[in-house]
């Protein structure tokens, strides 16, 4: 059976297992293998940094969303559920804008 390869750059699975990717599409084609690799090396693979968007508007939205989520967390902690609901709705609106 032929070895699995990335449809865009042709990188083989064996190379991915050695820790090398050929193009951004490799991360979709070999998602499972890459997650396993990162899990074994670092334990965790979820990127907690600020999300990256090339255009400034999306970056601002993403930053605002982070702030809202922090405020939401505090509101729930303080049991201010009315404010928490408002923040949640606002964050949801922003998320939809970002996705669109």
């Amino acid at each position, binding site marked *: 059976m032929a070895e699995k390869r990335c449809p865009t750059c042709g990188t083989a699975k064996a190379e991915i297992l050695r820790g090398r990717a050929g*193009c951004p599409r490799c991360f979709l084609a070999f998602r499972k293998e*890459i997650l396993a690799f990162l899990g074994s090396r*670092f334990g965790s693979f979820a990127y907690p*940094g600020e999300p*990256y968007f*090339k255009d400034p508007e999306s970056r601002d939205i993403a930053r605002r969303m982070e702030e809202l989520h922090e405020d939401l967390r505090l509101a729930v902690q303080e049991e201010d559920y009315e404010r928490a609901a408002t923040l949640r709705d606002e964050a949801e609106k922003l998320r939809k804008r970002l996705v669109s």
Partner: protein
Amino acid sequence: MKETRRVAEEKPEWLSSTGLYPETVVYSGVEVSRSLADGRFWARAGMGRGKQKRAATRALATVFGPGAKFSELARPARGVVWEKYPYLKGVLVLFSAGGGMHVGMGPREAMRFYSYSGGAISEPVFQRGLEAADSAGRAVEFAYDRELGFLNPNLEEVGSGLCFRALMHLPGMTHTDELNPLREGLEKAGVKTEGFLRGWPRPHGCLVTIAYRPGPGLRPAEAQDSFREIILFVVEQEKEARSALLASAEAIVEDRAARSLATLKVARVLGHDELADMLSWMRLGVAMDALEPLPLREMNSLLFLAGRNHMRAVAGKDLSHLEEDIMRASFVRAVVGGWGEISDQL
């Protein structure tokens, strides 16, 4: 000789020793790896990577101004770049923005933003590297995944793409045979160590590079804190080792430090490894008050500017080992000639 004097006057900012613990931490900094979103990763695009090159040119011109031409330097056959900027060893420097900020192609094939300075890593240096990458990311699209973060050809650089590095002067640990236990301890924390000029467990000049790649699961600020803790830990270990060394061999340290300075002033043939070892004794001697203060910045510069490739660059031709060592000795004499008086008074 005129040329060697000119070279001796070059003192890169990252060797300035202005940061924290400059005696133990020669330089430190951060590398931020980023890859372009389009097509194959840079080095895998083969010869036809004009599109990526144009995109990168746009990005860098945006960050560093229109004068910042993104051009691939011919591989520095004479090695000037690598000797002056040893943290870029094996790297093709694509653009130098001054002040310890460079953009280059690492051996791992991603575009890297290097930000370095003398002494232990400082907040502004760290921010400078991140901001440069950030600004470039507004002008050109980087490969990014919401779950994994920034995507790079080397899977160990996926996520924040950060790699912290520091060159540390560890004579105490070297001479008390503590380097191997240190290496084992650091490896458990994901930190790699390498001896200067590949020497181990007795690295030349007692210089050890430590490299920390935090992986995708840490925020950049957390990773920076971890790196700072690692450096502080090594600095503390080195302090203890130096105390032990001084308690058991003070006279030897004093002897080696004074003899090293005297030897450099009169040397006629001098190897790079030998120079590194002598500078190390001198640094240690100054730190332990066995020698009168010597200019740390000059000592750092001397260490790198007297490297093999730099000597060849100054000569403008290939040199035999002997020719190189003769030239190095002459270069070193010119720099060290005016340094400290050696007293024979006990």
